[in-house]
């Protein structure tokens, strides 16, 4: 450790103003602050001391994502062996999934971080940690059969158009990971819909008889309700789906971590849940087709609903900022997610679109919440003065 510190101190002057590698300063800084706590302190103005900086925030989210990721790896292997009709042990299953998922993670990180570094150099600001979470979220919301070059293109698109064009970390209007998924959804729809996308190897070999790679959502969309897996399977996640979304248990563990540490907003998660359940009930009462008759509990267990509201809707940059706003924002995310998936046959899953839609409205919601508060207080003051 000590020798590393000494080495960094030795080469540091070369990266500072007037040094040989002046242009690479932000790259150096990124590595230095990644390895060590920065020794800089704020010099002016009042400020609050807190151990929670952006790095800590991002690391917590990563930790919260780990259970879902590990389960996703295991489930990738599990679904594969199930589709081929092979018995395999736990470690073999996990290892298979690990090898399938790892390249997607690597591609997402390498492409995204490379672009972040380039922009940081051009614009002369620090490299932010914002991409650490995005880079892990992108693989987790991809189907396992996605070609790697598509992951690369989608990541590049998301980072450049959804993030850097708006001014980088903290300035983006849309959740970059969801933009990456939306990009693939619209650009290469064949890779992210249908029955062959979700189980490893199914795009090359036929499955054994009786196995269907269709996700619960596409079963529901084709009204074959009897084929929707049991609540138990949906909860533990023994179902085909995007890599990280299948296990509700793992997602709930992640949600608990986010809520306890205060990183993710429970207000958004709760109101989104209420929104989803509420719309589910409403559709139950209408009951115009078999899809509407699915119980609200099954509705929120299917697809990426829980994953979306726990890890994507709570993104502090793109969500509403005010407390009242968070309730409204969350409720609408949940409500639209279920509405889109039930009412629009072209979009089997609505969570992605609903969160992106509400990302656009979040600033507007905040604006009106703040305005309402100002009006209320003005009224109070005026009344006091009159009295």
């Amino acid at each position: 450790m000590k020798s590393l510190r000494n080495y960094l101190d030795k080469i540091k002057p070369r990266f500072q103003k007037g040094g040989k590698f002046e242009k690479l300063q932000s790259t150096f800084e990124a590595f230095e602050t990644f390895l060590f706590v920065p020794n800089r302190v704020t010099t002016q103005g009042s400020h609050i001391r807190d151990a929670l900086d952006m790095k800590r925030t991002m690391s917590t989210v990563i930790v919260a994502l780990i259970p879902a990721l590990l389960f996703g790896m295991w489930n990738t292997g599990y679904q594969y062996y199930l589709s081929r009709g092979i018995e395999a042990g736990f470690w073999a299953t996990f290892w298979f999934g690990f090898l399938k998922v790892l390249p997607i993670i690597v591609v997402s990180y390498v492409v995204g971080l490379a672009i972040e570094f380039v922009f940081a150099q051009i614009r002369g600001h620090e490299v932010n940690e914002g991409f650490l979470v995005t880079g892990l979220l992108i693989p987790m919301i991809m189907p396992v059969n996605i070609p790697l070059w598509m992951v690369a293109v989608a990541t590049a698109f998301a980072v450049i158009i959804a993030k850097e064009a708006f001014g980088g970390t903290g300035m983006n209007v849309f959740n970059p990971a969801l933009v990456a998924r939306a990009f693939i959804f619209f650009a290469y729809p064949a890779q992210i819909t249908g029955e062959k996308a979700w189980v490893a190897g199914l795009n090359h070999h036929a499955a054994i008889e009786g196995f269907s790679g269709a996700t619960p959502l596409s079963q529901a969309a084709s009204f074959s309700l009897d084929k929707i897996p049991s609540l138990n399977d949906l909860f533990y996640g023994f179902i085909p789906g995007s890599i990280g979304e299948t296990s509700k248990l793992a997602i709930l563990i992640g949600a608990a971590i986010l809520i306890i540490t205060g990183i993710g907003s429970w207000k958004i998660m709760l109101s989104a849940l209420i929104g989803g359940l509420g719309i589910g009930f409403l559709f139950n009462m209408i009951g115009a087709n078999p899809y509407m008759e699915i119980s609200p509990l099954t509705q929120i267990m299917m697809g990426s609903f829980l994953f979306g509201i726990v890890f994507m809707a709570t993104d502090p940059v793109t969500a509403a900022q005010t407390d009242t706003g968070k309730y409204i924002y969350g409720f609408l995310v949940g409500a639209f997610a279920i509405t889109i998936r039930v009412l629009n046959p072209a979009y089997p899953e609505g969570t992605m679109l609903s969160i992106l839609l509400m990302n656009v409205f979040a600033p507007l919601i905040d604006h009106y919440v703040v305005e309402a508060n100002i009006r209320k207080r003005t009224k109070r003051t005026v009344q006091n003065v009159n009295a």
Partner: protein
Amino acid sequence: MKEPLFSSRNIKLLSGPLNLNNPITVQILGICSALAVTVQMKPALVMALSVTVVTAFSNLIISSIRNTIPQRIRIIVQLVVVATLVIIVDQILKAFVYDVSKKLSVFVGLIITNCIVMGRLEAFAMAEKPWRSFLDGLGNGAGYGLILVAVSFLREFFGSGKIFGMQVVPRIMYENGYQDNGLMILPPMALITIGIIIWIQRSINRDLIDKS
């Protein structure tokens, strides 16, 4: 003193709109049709030529009669001229390139309402001499066409692997897993493509960036 036909002042009328005064990327005019007709290169090119012809000749005609147009009805007079030219262009397209004309459908007729045409008439032709107005119309039409062709090139190449309807992405690429990007065919991508062009242009020409 008589000015030569292609004095440097006049050449500027032609070259300005190509870059620093581009109607689409700098004046942000004519975006609507730029989004609509840029899925393929052929219609985009035809559209670009049509707009250039209409802008140039309506500029020329309006500029020639500018001193006799009563101020209060000038918009109607301009519209009559533009509409006449557009109908002529439309008929020519229908006669000689019928398939492209079908693809462009309503957008040829909509040249009448193209912001660039009206903009140049109001801002330039009403106050300048015919020859200069004609050059200005040509320049702005070419500037519009340049962006149209660039956008449609990117959209057709990445969206369907073709250029002017000819397959250019080799079969071997598709066999190895390459796929055309369906998003490029959708209208939002035209907007994003133009946005990227604007982004690049302003990074190169820093003085185009708003100071505010």
